[in-house]
């Protein structure tokens, strides 16, 4: 990380904080999970023995997805938005390396992804406190810790993937459509694992799958081995560098400059 990448990141954060519609949208996505779980908790069917299991299963999927949704609008704005408003070419004409440009934008997207994740987790804890049995409420801080531990590295990877996908999109609309498809990956994996749980093992170090296993285990009070969690975090963060490197190459290509004109 260099001073140039921090300059880019700071600008993108300040710029995006002024986009109230986007912030509201991200906030709504972050709180969608807690909201749905809260509604489900009022259902008569949910007031059965399986109530905590249903609630926890849903929470884990929504938490997983929130790691992806928080940085999505920022990634679209800083990559395809930059191209669409014709500000990419002036940026590429400065003496800043493409790598610093990409890293700066990734940092900005990650900051918003982490903020959305924090809002999501806070919402889930609030729902637990309001609607879950006392035994589960007591576990809330531990659950929050497991969720954050599992999902912080995933937010870094999600932001990197979103930067890459948005970078290859010609318009913000195209980027939005593509990224909505990307959102289905964690949603599908999360839902699949809720219904067909996998015990901690080698799958724990596979990004997205591993996070769902870790969160699910944490929520059920049977935490995954810390060594697996650390390995998962390392693998996930390392995986983030591949899309960032691809985005850097994309910005370095003539097509990026000519499409930016």
């Amino acid at each position, binding site marked *: 990380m260099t001073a140039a990448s921090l300059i*880019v990141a700071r600008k993108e954060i*300040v710029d995006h904080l002024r*986009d109230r519609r986007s912030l509201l949208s991200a906030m709504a996505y972050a709180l969608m999970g807690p909201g749905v779980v809260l509604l489900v908790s009022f259902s008569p069917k949910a007031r059965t023995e399986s109530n905590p299991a249903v609630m926890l299963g849903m929470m884990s999927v929504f938490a997983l997805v929130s790691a992806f949704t928080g940085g999505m609008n920022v990634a679209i704005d800083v990559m395809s938005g930059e191209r669409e408003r014709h500000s990419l070419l*002036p940026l590429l004409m400065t*003496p800043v390396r493409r790598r610093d440009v990409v890293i700066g934008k990734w940092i900005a997207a990650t900051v918003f992804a982490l903020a959305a994740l924090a809002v999501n987790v806070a919402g889930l804890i609030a729902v637990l406190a309001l609607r879950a049995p006392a035994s589960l409420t007591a576990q809330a801080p531990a659950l929050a810790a497991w969720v954050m531990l599992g999902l912080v590295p995933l937010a870094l990877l999600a932001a990197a993937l979103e930067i890459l996908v948005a970078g290859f999109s010609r318009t913000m609309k195209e980027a939005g459509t593509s990224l909505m498809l990307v959102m289905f990956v964690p949603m599908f994996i999360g839902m699949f694992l809720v219904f067909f749980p996998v015990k901690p093992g080698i799958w724990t170090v596979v990004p997205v799958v591993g996070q769902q296993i870790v969160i699910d285990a944490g929520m059920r009070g049977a935490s995954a081995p810390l060594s697996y969690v650390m390995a998962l975090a390392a693998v996930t963060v390392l995986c983030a560098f591949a899309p960032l490197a691809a985005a850097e190459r994309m910005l370095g290509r003539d097509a990026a400059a*000519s499409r930016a004109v």
Partner: protein
Amino acid sequence: MIEVEGLRKRYGSVTAVDGVSFAAPDGRITGLLGANGAGKTTTIGMICGVVTPDAGSVRIDGVTAPIEMRRRIGALHDHKGLYMRLTARENIRYFGQLHGLSGAELEGRVQTVVSRLGLNAVADRQTAGFSQGERMKVALARALVHDPRTLLLDEPTNGLDIPTVRAFRQLLSDLRAQGTCIVLSSHVLEDVSAVCDDLVIIARGRVVAAGSQQEICRRAGAGSLEDAFMRLTTCEEVSS
């Protein structure tokens, strides 16, 4: 000084630039004149180091490394590319920072260009509601904030009203007097005719004529730049 030698660039089966060579000295305004699609913007892109030539070279003040060339130039494009949620001052400051300025030096340079371009009244407003002229001024201030010795302007007067164009031309004259090397790419004959010392006419990716306005008219056997331009861009090459 910009020295361009034998630049070539193809995009698939289309040859965008085909052996363009010219020199733009310091303290002069060199006009890059050509119809839409002639290869001007691709040439500017290669001079700026954002488009890699298939062949040929660009040298700015003796430097050939793209990142070093970008350090020495200020560039303004047809699409101004401002950040609408940032104020004019923040837009200018951001580019100053990207050029390595910081602290009091940065703020001093930002204020200098804001004052020089008459942006004081709008400097702290978000650029979203700016007129075309105000956007051009902010984009130009952004290009000048690091005090570059070389200025590249691609279709700078598109959409501007007459007073803004006149003020812009006066600014270019002032910068030329200070020794700045200016390359102005345009398809607007009035612009190049009014401010340029030297002209490079490009057609189908090739230089078809280069020299002063009078020299080009004489060689083309035309009474006006417009006639010369039409003859040169629709006929064979006239060597400089």
